[in-house]
């Protein structure tokens, strides 16, 4: 959350010679980030500050002044916090009727006072301060509530006393289906469990801690107000505010752990300001219902722990000084500091480390040296077992074979899921209908990419990503898959197969088998030894795809290197052209040829022309030069075997 404040307003509570740019820089380094510093008029500045959610106490002029006064001395700059004192108002002569009935399980504290006011414009300095803070000045009464919110950091509310017919404010939970109209004239249907105030006759008069309602707020005709401040349970406030989409500054503050002790300050300061700028008169005793007072907390921090976590020695005296200025009560003993947490920090500071953070940040992170953590012991490393190594190799190989890598979303629509939705990981609260299921296959997402790039007649894309398979009472099985698509005219099965063969051969996998696809269609199933890894599919005349289980591939990938002695004697190479029935597979022919002699070291397919195939056969004897007679004997054996076993003719 961000807050904008005027430098001159801040200096009402902060005495220092530090100029605004300097102060902004020091705040950013040690406390909260000043995201922008803008010049305002002749000599003023506006700070735009991001306040972290654990520091709602800094969503105020007073909080920031205290913080700045603690920080600046650590930079050698003098600074003092001018702590405000709010006077108890004089007891009024009259005491108008107002009954407040609280529910302590919903609201921790309620304070209120009734005042007679004279509605009008605020003085210029109030308008100027509010407008610099990004708040529009409306009238003096509303301006007081906003002014207090900025200065003290506590949201306050005003009712029109005369519009509260029953003179009753009853705090309760909303029931499902109850309707309210907020001051911006929007009607909301409540879901139940929201903290509301009603008038005792079932008419809702306030959406507590979030926004005033149209039926009870101040109007042009207002003469008497109820100045109303409360501390509601923060998580309830958040829930209602998010459910209804009402994100007022009041709601954003009230859903944090703001300090209920501030309510008295806010009440007294408010009464004082109403008197000052709205000719107000107190016409009731101040009311304070405070069932849930925060408990004070003490933490004892060992001095050596402070040094151990920060990494340098911080003098105990410095720690005490820093904590003291931040509002902590401290007691220094020989080895430790006992710290009492101020009420405005109870929501944030609870353990030793929290206290150490306070010391460390104000001492200054910028003062600490940069040291790499010493490496005394390291994990054993095995390149072959490093999954990321294989991923990188595969990705690079594909890249150098013209594939472009894509990243598509893991969440897919029902349409892209392909397959039964029942057996899928489904998102309960999807952002859009395009992203409802966790995908079980990558190819449909890649086909989507092909469609989205339909101007490309040729493309090669791939993705290496997880798919998700649900399991009974366990997290889904996340499996890394490698999928790719080749789009080109007359796309070839052999080309796709070749890519996979080469890809896997390169990472030491040789035992590949391609078998008929179970799902039918053009393509093939692929296994490494007995492990099925996936499929090649010729989807259309111009689209081939593959999807392989990368976990299985990784299991088989290896860096094994086997040395085979180089052969000293030259091979004899000859080509053999055959005519065969196309149903006889290549694999079958090669195996028959190879079987005929150990001297056949290689058989490869050279050419296919109609029903004719040309094979190149390499003969080699490791121990001597082969003679033509020896080769012709083997050739005769081959010819005979092919004719006999496969009815193949040699041309």
């Amino acid at each position, binding site marked *: 959350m961000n807050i904008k404040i005027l430098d001159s307003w801040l200096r009402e509570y902060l005495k220092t010679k530090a100029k605004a740019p300097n102060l*902004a820089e020091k705040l950013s380094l040690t406390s909260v980030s000043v995201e922008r510093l803008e010049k305002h008029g002749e000599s003023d500045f506006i700070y735009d500050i991001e306040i972290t959610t654990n520091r709602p106490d800094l969503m105020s002029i007073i909080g920031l002044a205290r913080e700045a006064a603690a920080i600046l001395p650590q930079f050698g700059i003098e600074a003092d916090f001018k702590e405000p004192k709010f006077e108890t108002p004089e007891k009024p002569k009259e005491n108008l009727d107002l009954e407040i009935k609280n529910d302590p399980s919903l609201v921790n504290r309620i304070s209120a006072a009734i005042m007679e006011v004279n509605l009008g414009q605020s003085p210029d300095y109030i308008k100027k301060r509010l407008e610099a803070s990004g708040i529009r000045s409306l009238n003096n009464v509303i301006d007081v509530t906003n002014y207090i919110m900025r200065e003290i950091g506590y949201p306050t509310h005003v009712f029109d006393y005369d519009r509260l017919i029953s003179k009753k404010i009853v705090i309760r939970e909303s029931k499902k289906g109850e309707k309210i109209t907020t001051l911006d004239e929007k009607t909301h249907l409540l879901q139940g469990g929201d903290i509301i105030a009603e008038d005792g006759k079932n008419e809702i008069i306030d959406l507590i801690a979030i926004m005033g309602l149209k039926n009870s707020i101040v109007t042009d005709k207002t003469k008497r107000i109820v100045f109303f401040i409360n501390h509601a349970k923060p998580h309830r406030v958040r829930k209602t505010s998010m459910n209804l989409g009402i994100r007022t500054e009041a709601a954003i503050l009230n859903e944090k752990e703001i300090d209920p002790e501030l309510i008295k300050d806010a009440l007294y300061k408010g009464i004082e300001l109403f008197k000052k700028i709205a000719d107000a008169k107190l016409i009731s005793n101040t009311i304070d219902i405070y069932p849930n007072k925060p408990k004070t907390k003490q933490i004892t921090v060992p001095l050596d722990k402070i040094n151990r976590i920060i990494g340098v020695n911080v003098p105990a005296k410095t720690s005490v000084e820093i904590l003291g200025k931040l509002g902590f009560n401290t007691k220094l003993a020989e080895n430790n500091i006992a710290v009492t947490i101020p009420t405005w920090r109870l929501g944030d500071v609870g353990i030793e480390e929290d206290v150490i953070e306070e010391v460390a940040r104000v001492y200054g992170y910028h003062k600490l040296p940069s040291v790499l953590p010493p490496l005394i012991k390291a994990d054993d490393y095995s390149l072959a077992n490093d999954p990321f190594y294989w991923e990188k190799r595969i990705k690079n190989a594909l890249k150098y074979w013209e594939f472009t890598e894509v990243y598509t979303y893991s969440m897919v629509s029902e349409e892209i899921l392909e397959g039964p939705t029942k057996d899928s990981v489904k998102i309960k609260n999807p952002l859009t209908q395009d992203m409802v299921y966790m995908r079980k296959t990558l190819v449909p997402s890649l086909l989507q990419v092909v469609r989205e790039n339909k101007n490309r007649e040729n493309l090669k894309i791939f993705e290496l990503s997880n798919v998700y398979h649900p399991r009974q009472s366990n997290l889904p099985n996340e499996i890394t898959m490698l999928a790719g698509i080749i789009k080109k005219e007359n796309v070839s099965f052999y080309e796709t197969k070749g890519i996979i063969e080469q890809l896997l051969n390169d990472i030491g996998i040789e035992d590949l088998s391609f078998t008929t696809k179970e799902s039918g269609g053009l393509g093939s199933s692929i296994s490494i030894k007995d492990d099925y890894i996936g499929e090649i599919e010729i989807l259309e005349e111009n689209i081939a795809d593959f999807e392989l289980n990368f976990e299985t591939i990784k299991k088989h990938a290896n860096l094994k290197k086997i040395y085979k002695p180089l052969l000293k004697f030259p091979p004899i190479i000859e080509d053999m052209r055959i005519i065969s029935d196309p149903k006889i597979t290549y694999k079958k022919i090669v195996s028959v040829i190879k079987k005929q002699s150990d001297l056949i070291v290689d058989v490869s397919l050279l050419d296919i022309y109609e029903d004719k195939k040309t094979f190149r056969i390499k003969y080699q004897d490791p121990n001597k030069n082969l003679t033509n007679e020896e080769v012709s004997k083997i050739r005769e054996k081959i010819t005979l075997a092919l004719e006999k076993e496969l009815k193949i003719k040699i041309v």
Partner: protein
Amino acid sequence: MEEEFINIKNSAMSIIFDAKDLKELEEIKLQFLGRSGKLTLAIKEISKLPKEKRPEVGQLANEIKKTIENLIDEKNRELTRKTKEYHEQKTVDITMPGIKPPLGHLHLITQAIEEITSIFEHIGFTRVRYPEVEWDWYAFEALNFPENHPARDDWETFFIESNSHPKFGPMLLTPHTSSGQIREMERKKTPPIRMLNIAKCYRRQSDVSHVPMFHQFEGLVVDKNISITHLKGTLDYFVRSYFGKDRKSRIRPYHFQFTEPSFEVDVSCGVCKGSARLPDGQSCKLCKEGWLEMGGSGMVHPNVLKNSGIDSKEYTGFAFGWGVERVLMMKEGIKIDDLRLIYLNNLDFLEQF
């Protein structure tokens, strides 16, 4: 007589060696081996020698003839090759595109992940990977998130339609790589731990600077006496290595549930060079007063150590979790105005990198 032959050989050798072109070589050949060449004439003289000397000189003459012929042949081949190359070169249009081997493209995110990994591996980090679909325990509860923390509600985190685990709570898509902290500490049981977890994360958001699926990299170091100074050292090393020596980094106070103290890490702006002003005097729109926020970090919260079975009295640690997309965008030269473009998979976009 023998001497004469040796001389002929020597002079032939040097002349052949110096021949400039094929024409000259042809003349040399005639000069020595032609019908009235020096060697031919000398051989004719052998018949005038006494009979007993002829075989010896004859053999020498033959050897020399062979040597000269070989030399000429060799030179001939050399000159022919050179001439051919010369002619070929004369017809090459060097401005024509070369014949390139095929080349695809790795995704920007992959490239960034590789770079980040290399940097951290240089200082002893081990890369790991943990589930994307997680239990609440790992994503929130063990990381010290209070029950009512906004990140745990339906507006920010994706939940899975599934029964809750009796111990680990609801199933969800992990919104950060920090869930890997708990998993890594459980796996290793005893420090030292020096983890780098890079993974997909998911959040319920989509606009120009947010995508529902994105990548984070998480560092975790747990050991005896790990302090804020070590976090600073690691961070500075990364910033110098990834962004370059002219970029500065700083840590400043921030708030996270799972670290205490917590820091926001800033890197000086690459556009305005950390000055918050552009050369034309305008204020820099990219950064905040000269700084860009890179992400969160902090000292591991003692509750997180406890929840992971690590003795928080004996060990301390630091952790950081930063967006891969974010550091990529913060690198100079990559100005992508809509983060969603990264996952649109428009090939014209992907082929730029």
